[in-house]
């Protein structure tokens, strides 16, 4: 079974050299730490920055330089700043190659719910609806089951949707699964020490298992 860092590490393998990537808050943010050395990957922050660098050294924080999670960050040589209209313009125009974000639920046809729980205080969708509606490739990083032990990979989402038919891949503490165009979670890899049966039990939506399922290499 993977911990959060493990999920981030596994997702990092999905990133191609020479790509532009938008990382959501939570586990996706950790992915930045595992991008292979030598890879040229540019991180987009949807408040208006391409080329997000690491956090600043203590004392070097700049209130004018934050990421979409409102954290103080740095730029890199080659960074560019722009306004929020251009930022979502490049997202909408599919110039961002990959979006990695968290989810509360994913359905077997690729719908995602990650912004609202009815009856609870709703903070808002931020840029998530724009990202999932437009990204060429969307990978979800999340736990396979919720705190109540219920599967988050469902036949259909029960929570209000963030976007429809958009998720391409899911990486959880148990498995890597791709969402097939015709519907269904195709099991691609097991986490170390996790059996196919464990994954079956934790997956409420249609699970497709073909042949031997390899254990992932993290």
């Amino acid at each position, binding site marked *: 079974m993977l911990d959060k860092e493990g999920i981030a590490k596994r997702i990092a393998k999905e990133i191609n050299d020479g790509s532009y990537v938008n990382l959501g808050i939570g586990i996706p943010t950790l992915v930045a730490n595992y991008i292979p050395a030598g890879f040229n990957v540019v991180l987009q922050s949807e408040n208006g920055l391409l080329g997000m660098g690491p956090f600043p050294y203590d004392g070097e924080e700049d209130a004018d330089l934050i990421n979409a999670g409102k954290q103080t960050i740095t730029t890199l040589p080659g960074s560019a700043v722009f306004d929020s209209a251009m930022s979502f313009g490049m997202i909408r125009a599919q110039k961002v190659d990959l979006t990695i974000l968290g989810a509360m639920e994913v359905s077997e046809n690729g719908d995602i719910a990650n912004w609202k729980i009815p009856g609870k205080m709703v903070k808002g969708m*931020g840029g998530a609806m724009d990202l999932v509606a437009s990204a060429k490739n969307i990978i979800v990083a999340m736990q396979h089951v919720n705190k109540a032990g219920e599967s988050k990979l469902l036949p259909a989402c029960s929570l209000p949707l963030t976007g*429809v038919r958009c998720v391409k891949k899911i990486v959880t503490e148990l498995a890597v699964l791709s969402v097939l165009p015709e519907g269904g979670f195709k099991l691609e890899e097991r986490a170390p020490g996790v059996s196919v049966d464990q994954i079956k039990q934790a997956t409420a939506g249609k699970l497709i298992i073909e042949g031997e399922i390899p254990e992932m290499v993290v």
Partner: protein
Amino acid sequence: MINKTVKDADEAIRDLADGMTIMFGGFGLCGIPENCISALVKKGVKNLTCISNNAGVDDFGIGLMLHQRQVKKMISSYVGENAEFERQLLSGELEVELIPQGTLATRCLAAGYGMPAIYTPAGVGTEVAEGKEVRNFNGKDYLMEMAFDADFALVKAWKGDTAGNLIFRSTSRNFNPIMAMAGKITIAEVEELVEPGELNPDHIHTPGIYVHRIFQGKNYQKRIEQRTVRNR
């Protein structure tokens, strides 16, 4: 050039009145019009509809106006860094319209560029689409979203000249230039107000034609919401 200078925030918002729709630049607490917000709190205008990506924190930004019950409605993409906001929302004192961040940004752009409506895929198939026109282009569904119509836009720039030209610094740019274009009356507060000719015409982010009033702000706090650092 046309001189857009006013003395201070109080003079800038002199005719901003109860019930108006006001845009606020900034993302989180980054690049917010601090002086204008202070002046609004002092002036005590009420029943405002505020278009702002966020709603400030309890003791800063739009949070200060929430404490004074000046806000009737918030139009934002992400709120709730703010206990008072939550209290007013749950008690029904405050109305909130949540819209996707890119839709928020593009509705500003639409207003500034004289486009009555735009199409975006954001929110298709979700509750955001309720009551909106869905239209298919090249096999993909889009929502029609309308340009904003704001009485005032309050923005914060780094440098500006008396002709209203603005330059923003780093990611404090965010919503500021697009809201500057979108207000019927746009007020810009700047950290440094200079004479025409001191800004390179190629570096200007917001041409002065979009700015109606400008002043040099004071006592910027520029608070950091999430101070994150790494070890040396």
